C-alpha cells in the first residue's frame, strides 16, 4: 500500500510539478546510473532537488532510490518523518557525530551493500539559494569503502529560485540539470574531493545563468 502511495506520489504529483509547473532543461541525462549500487551527488538549494533527480531516473529504479537526508531536520514531527521515510523514501542519517556512537554513515554502507542508489548532497544543507558551497568529506569515505560504485555528479540550477530554503510558496522557473561523467575512487581522499569539486565546477560552467541577487 505504501509502495503504491510512493509510486503515485512520484508518477502523478512529482511528474506534473516537475514537467508542467517547473520545466527542466536536462543535459546528458543518459549519464545517470541505470542500475544499483550507485551514488548521485548534487549541489543542494531546495527540497525540490531530490524530487527532480528522482523524476529523471527510470521508474523501475524507484524502489532502489534513497535520498540521504538529515535526521534532525526530517524527524522534527511524526507526520513529516512518516512522509519523508515512506513516501519520499529518505535514508535518514545523523549530521552530528556523538562520541562512542557508531559511524553516522553506517546506514549508507548497508544501503550500498544492498545495491541501492543513494542521492547525496555533500554541501550538508540547502545553504543560500543558487550558491555553490564546499562539499563535505563524507562522500570520500563512502567512495573509499565502495571503490567500485560509480559516483555521478549533477549540477542543479534554478530550483533554489523556485522554492528556496524557508519559503513555502513555489514560484515557477525553468531549471537546469547538468549530469557529469561518473567519477572513480582515486585511492586517496583529498585528491578524490578535488576531482569531485573540479567536476562540479566544470558542470556549472556549462550554462549561462542570469543573476539572482
Amino acid at each position, binding site marked *: 500500500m505504501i509502495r503504491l502511495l510512493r509510486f503515485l506520489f512520484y508518477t502523478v504529483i512529482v511528474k506534473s510539478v516537475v514537467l508542467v509547473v517547473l520545466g527542466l532543461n536536462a543535459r546528458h541525462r543518459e549519464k545517470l546510473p541505470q542500475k544499483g549500487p550507485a551514488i548521485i551527488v548534487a549541489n543542494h538549494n531546495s527540497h525540490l532537488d531530490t524530487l527532480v533527480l528522482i523524476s529523471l531516473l527510470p521508474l523501475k529504479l524507484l524502489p532502489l532510490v534513497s535520498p540521504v537526508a538529515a535526521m534532525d531536520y526530517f524527524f522534527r514531527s511524526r507526520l513529516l518523518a512518516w512522509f519523508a521515510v515512506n513516501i519520499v523514501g529518505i535514508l535518514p542519517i545523523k549530521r552530528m557525530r556523538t562520541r562512542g556512537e557508531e559511524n553516522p554513515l553506517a546506514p549508507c554502507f548497508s544501503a550500498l551493500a544492498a545495491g541501492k542508489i543513494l542521492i547525496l548532497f555533500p554541501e550538508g544543507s540547502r545553504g543560500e539559494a543558487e550558491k555553490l558551497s564546499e562539499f563535505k568529506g563524507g562522500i570520500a569515505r563512502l567512495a573509499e569503502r565502495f571503490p567500485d560504485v560509480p559516483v555521478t555528479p549533477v549540477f542543479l540550477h534554478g530550483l533554489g*529560485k523556485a522554492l528556496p530554503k524557508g519559503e513555502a510558496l513555489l514560484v515557477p*522557473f525553468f531549471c537546469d540539470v547538468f549530469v557529469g561523467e561518473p567519477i572513480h575512487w582515486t585511492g586517496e581522499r583529498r585528491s578524490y574531493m578535488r576531482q569531485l569539486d573540479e567536476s562540479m565546477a566544470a558542470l556549472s560552467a556549462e550554462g549561462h545563468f*542570469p543573476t*539572482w541577487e
Partner: protein
Amino acid sequence: MRTLEVSPNVLWSLAGLYGILIVASMIVAVLRRSPADANYRELVQRVRSWWAMVTVFTIALSLNRNISLVFFAFISFVALKEFFSIIPTRRADRRVIFWAYLAIPLQYYWIAQAWYGMFIIFIPVYMFLFLPLRMLIIGETKEFLRAAGTLHWGVMIMVFSISHVAYLLVLPAANNPGGGGAGLVLFLVFLTQFNDVAQYLWGKMLGRHKIIPKVSPNKTWEGFLGGMATTTILAVLLADLLTPLSLSASLLAGLLISAAGFVGDVTISAIKRDMNIKDSGSWLPGHGGILDRIDSLTYTAPLFFHFVYYLYY
C-alpha cells in the same frame, strides 16, 4: 461548454497544413544526409517538432473554445516562465513574479467572458500599476526600476500580446461566416510561422545584404523581401477561405504579418543576445525554447487583431 463550430473551410485549411508537413518530411527524407551531420540532425528534429506542434494546435483549435483558451493560456505560461528564467531577477521579487503569473488565468478569463474592455486594459493598466505596488510592500529599492520594467515587459509580450490570438476566437462569428474565430486564428498563426520559414529559406537561397547585422547577422534584405512577397501572396489566397478580409485588406494583412513577424523575431533575438544565450530554452527539439517559436507571433498577434477588429468588428 460550448462546442466550437469549426467550419469546413478551417478543416480544409488544416488538411492543407498537413499536406505541407508531408511534403516537408519527404524533402527531408530525400535529402538524407548522414545523421552525424549536425545541421541535418537539427532539420530532422525541427520537422518532427513541427508535426507535434501542428497536431497539438489542431486538437486545441478544433475540440471546443474553452480548450483552445486553456491552450493559449498555457502557451503564455510557458513563454513567461522561459522569459523569467533567462532574465536577471531579484531574490526579493519572488512573490512579485508569482503575481505576474496570476495575470494569465485572469487575462484568459476576461477573454472567455468576451469582456473586451477589461481584456484590453487589464495588463497595460492594472497589472502595470499593481506589480510595482507589490514590490513596494517588499521594500527592496536596489534595481527597483529595472525589475519593474523587465517584469512588466515580460507580462506584456508573453501574456498580453499572445492573448490577442485567443481573443480572435470570441469575436462575433456572424462577421466571419466562412471561417469563424478559428479561421482568423489559423490565418494569423499559419502565416506568421510560414513567414518565418519563408524568410529563412529566401535568405538561405539569395541572401546577400544584411538587414540588421548588429542584432541578427543571418537576416538579409533578400530573405525579408522574399518572405514578404510569398507570405502576402498566400494571405491573398487564404483570406477568402478563412477571414472576412477584402482583396486589398488581405494584401495589407499579408504585408503587416510579414513585417511585424520580422520585428518580433529580431526583438527576441536582441534579448537573447543581451543575455548571451543562443536559444531561449530546450522545450522544442530543433527549435530551442518556446520563445524561439512564438517570437514573431508576439508582434503579429496584437497588430493583426487590431487591423481586423477596426475594419470588420
